[in-house]
């Protein structure tokens, strides 16, 4: 993909990246601040949340987070 094309699609990419990052970072903060999980450990969840786009945070909040 060349630079002109990248520029053309910038109005899409910026909100997309913001939405993905917002999800990822919210989940990451939660992973780091609540170190009790139903299964798995901190490193595993941090990787899942940051590397698996969109689905990772959903899976963490639905199945991974432990009771407070």
């Amino acid at each position: 993909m060349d630079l002109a094309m990248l520029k053309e699609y910038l109005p899409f990419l910026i909100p997309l990246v913001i939405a993905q990052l917002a999800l990822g970072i919210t989940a990451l903060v939660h992973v780091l601040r609540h170190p009790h999980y139903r299964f798995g450990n901190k490193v595993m969840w941090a990787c899942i949340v940051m590397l698996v786009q969109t689905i990772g945070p959903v899976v963490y909040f639905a199945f991974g987070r432990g009771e407070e």
Partner: protein
Amino acid sequence: MRNYLAFLKKEIYEYTKTYKLLIMLMVFAVFGITNPLVAKLLPEILGSLKTEGIIMTLPEATAYDAWTQFFKNATQMGLIVMVILFSPVLSSELSRGTLINMLTKGLSRTVVILSKYTCMVVVWTISIALCFGLTYGYTVYLFPAGETANLLFSTFCLWMFGLFLLATLLLAATLTKSNYGCLLITGAVVVACMLVNIIPAAHRYNPISLATDNMGLITDDIEVSSLYCTILISCLLSFLFLTISVLIFRKKQV
């Protein structure tokens, strides 16, 4: 009525505190932005894969492709994410026992079920509206010539199917103790609907037609009037499921 509003407020507060509202909105926003983008970029990505000796003729992407993406993502991933997020709707409070105090203080059980359903419907409505709005805006921007028929009606059908699914979810939640049981029953209902759909005569009366006929509606291959019966049946079934779950929850040992 005051109890209902108070419990509704508590539910909304819970969804913001457990990040469920944020996740729903973000996931649907991501889908909303991705839909037209993928439709636009797919021919270019395929074109860049072109190798010697293979001739590929790729049709120009149209607004239909963007809406195909929208209905594919929203009916599959969107609904799955929604069901997974809402599956602990009752089980979390039952297992932690936080509901007991309120029930012994005189909060009616009917109110609990009804306000939970209302809150889920509100979140679902906002999410689908956000996704639709983003897809619509970007599609108009990317494909200015694109004309589509029955777009709002088609999305309304999808929304209606969401209501049916949430009613099923709530009934499943009152029937089981864990959220996995709830997920299992909801999944089983959807699979059963899909199996029934194999019989052509049942197609008109099956709620799942609301989530499978969307593209046909947009391309005008399917008559709008053929879905009126399905919508009516979905409404009745949702109402029935809601009533049954209220009745079961009234008898349920908390």
